C-alpha cells in the first residue's frame, strides 16, 4: 500500500489551492512521510536522532493513537497508513480518508504557526460554534483546551477541501461565520 498511499498524499497536496501550497512552503510545512509505524514512538525516535530532544511518555502514548501527526520541530507531516482506522477499506475510500487526513495535518501546520494567543484562548468558544457532531469529535478525542482552536482549524480546513473537490467554494451554510473567518485568517483560506 506504500506507494499508492504516497501517490494519494501527493495528489492531495496538488489539489490544495496554489496560495495554500505557497503558504505551507513559506512556513516549511511541505514535507510528509507515509509510514507504517505508531507515530508517537516514531516521531520520538526522529526527534532524538535529530538531537532535538525527547517527547514525554504521555505524549508518545497520545501520538501513538494518531492517524497522522504534524511535528513542528521536524517540519514534517507523518501519516500512519497501518493505523487500524484504515483497515479493510477499498481503494476509493482509502484515498478519500487519506486525503482528508493529509489536509487535516496541513491545517494543523498552518494553525500551529499562525494562530495567535487570542485565537488559542478562544478555543472552547470556536468548538461551541461548530455543528454539534463536529464539536463532539473534538471534545471526545481527548484534546486539551489549548488544542481546540488547532483542531477546529484543521477539521474545517479538511472539510473545506473535501467540499472544494466537489466544486463548492465560499462559506458553507452549516459553518458559523466566526469559524469561517478564523480559518480564512489562520489558514489563509480564500476559496
Amino acid at each position, binding site marked *: 500500500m506504500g506507494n499508492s498511499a504516497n501517490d494519494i498524499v501527493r495528489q492531495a497536496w496538488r489539489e490544495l489551492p496554489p496560495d495554500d501550497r505557497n503558504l505551507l512552503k513559506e512556513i516549511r510545512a511541505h514535507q510528509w512521510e507515509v509510514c507504517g509505524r505508531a*507515530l508517537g514512538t516514531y*516521531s520520538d525516535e526522529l*526527534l532524538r536522532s535529530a538531537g*532535538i*530532544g*525527547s*517527547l514525554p511518555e504521555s*505524549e508518545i502514548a*497520545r*501520538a501513538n*493513537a*494518531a*492517524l*497522522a*501527526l*504534524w*511535528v*513542528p*520541530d521536524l517540519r514534517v507531516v507523518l501519516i500512519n497508513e497501518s493505523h487500524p*482506522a*484504515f483497515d479493510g*477499506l477499498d481503494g476509493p*475510500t482509502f484515498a*478519500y*480518508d487519506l486525503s*482528508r*487526513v493529509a489536509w*487535516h*495535518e496541513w491545517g*494543523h*501546520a498552518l*494553525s*500551529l504557526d499562525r494562530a495567535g494567543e487570542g485565537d488559542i484562548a478562544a478555543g472552547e468558544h470556536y468548538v461551541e460554534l461548530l*455543528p454539534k*457532531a*463536529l464539536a*463532539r*469529535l473534538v471534545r*471526545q*478525542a*481527548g*484534546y486539551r483546551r489549548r*488544542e481546540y482552536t*488547532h483542531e477546529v482549524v*484543521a477539521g474545517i480546513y479538511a*472539510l473545506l477541501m*473535501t*467540499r472544494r473537490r*466537489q466544486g*463548492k467554494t465560499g462559506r*458553507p*451554510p*452549516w459553518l458559523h461565520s466566526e469559524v469561517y473567518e478564523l480559518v480564512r485568517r489562520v489558514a489563509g483560506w480564500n476559496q
Partner: protein
Amino acid sequence: MEPVKLPAGYRLPEGTTMADVRRLDQELLASEGQETKGLQAKKSDQDTTRKKK
C-alpha cells in the same frame, strides 16, 4: 535547550471510525443541497405569487 514542541495529531474518539467521519461529511454536504433546494423552492413560490399578482 528549548523544550520539544508537542506534535499535533489527528485522533478519533474511542468508538468512532473513519466511516463515521465520512458519514458526517456527507450529511453536512448533503444539507447544503437541501438548503439550496429549499431556497430555490421558496424563490419559485415567490415567483409564482408575483406572477399571480
